[in-house]
């Protein structure tokens, strides 16, 4: 079984993109590049107001991201290491609205099972569309 048991979908406002990506590069993906480069907007055209990323993560990586989001949103830090898997899932459910309200960041966590069934529903819920280049 893979160690990358979680998948996290993140939609982030353009204004937070650079800072959060820097944190990702310093803490999660040390050799990585730009996580948030897929542009979104309400019209599907430029300029992008949001960006999104979808990552397969280890449990520890997911915990680091959740602690960072909790810190940014000024909510109680989760004791990720001592939580069970269901407790971690419940923590995300309990706090995603606050994270969205305070930070404007939408998150959707799921098992990394190869089925990105939450992708389209999260995009629809956000009212955002992928900014698509027209091929002519």
């Amino acid at each position: 079984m893979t160690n990358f048991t979680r998948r996290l979908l993140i939609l982030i406002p353009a204004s937070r993109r650079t800072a959060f990506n820097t944190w990702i590069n310093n803490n999660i993906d040390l050799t990585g590049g730009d996580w948030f480069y897929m542009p979104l907007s309400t019209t599907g055209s430029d300029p992008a107001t949001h960006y999104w990323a979808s990552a397969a993560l280890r449990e520890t990586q997911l915990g680091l991201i959740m602690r960072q989001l909790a810190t940014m949103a000024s909510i109680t830090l989760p004791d990720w290491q001592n939580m069970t898997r269901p407790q971690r899932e419940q923590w995300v459910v309990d706090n995603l609205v606050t994270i969205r309200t305070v930070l404007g960041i939408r998150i959707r966590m799921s098992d990394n099972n190869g089925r990105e069934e939450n992708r389209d529903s999260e995009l629809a819920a956000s009212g955002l569309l992928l900014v698509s280049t027209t091929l002519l």
Partner: protein
Amino acid sequence: MKKFFNLTPLGGFTPKSLSGLVVWLKSGTGLFQESTFATPSIANNDPIGGWQDQSGQGNHVVQTTASKRPSILTNAVNGWSGVNFDGVDDQLLSANFTGGTLLNETSFVVLNVTGTTEDSIMVSSNSANGVIINNPTANDLNLYNGQNGAYTDIITPGTNYIISILFNGASSNIILNGSLQSNVNPNSTPQPEENLEIGQIFASFPLAGYILEIIKYNRVLTLAERITVDNYLNGKFRVY
């Protein structure tokens, strides 16, 4: 009824049996979690940061950013593994082709597109040319070679396909599961192709689906040669 014709004469055939092979991304072979090819991707849903080219030309495809890595889908088709793209941001890229830019070329892709709400890029190169687009809204398959070719309504999401693509400018076309498609020629002038991009292009059109195998030659194969490679792939994946 499924057709498994012409299998017996293929004994010993591999894509290397034909000249001009420049890329062979082989199902279940050369898959690694990192772009540095350090840790093999073996378990279902392991990330894929590198897929090593088996052509001998060193045209490997990699992804250095963790969030953009596709994952392995074991036992995807007839026991073979697929490379699963998430439809958000996954992508694999090669460096510029070893040996230089391709002008006329023939490619083969074995894939299954699962996305149903967005355009999807399956294989592309040079960020401008040699692009295949699937528009699931209309189930279209299209060749892009500097400009769009005619769309053909031939793709059904969730279905396995072996697609052979010939780019030569004058009569570029597609063979889909053994059937030659018409009216897909995008451009009368061959467009140069510099590298291979898989999963998306222009930071747009993300592919939701999985790719089993990709083979690319730096020349226009004859129809007989294309059928031979098609049969090699169909004998392996049992698609049609």
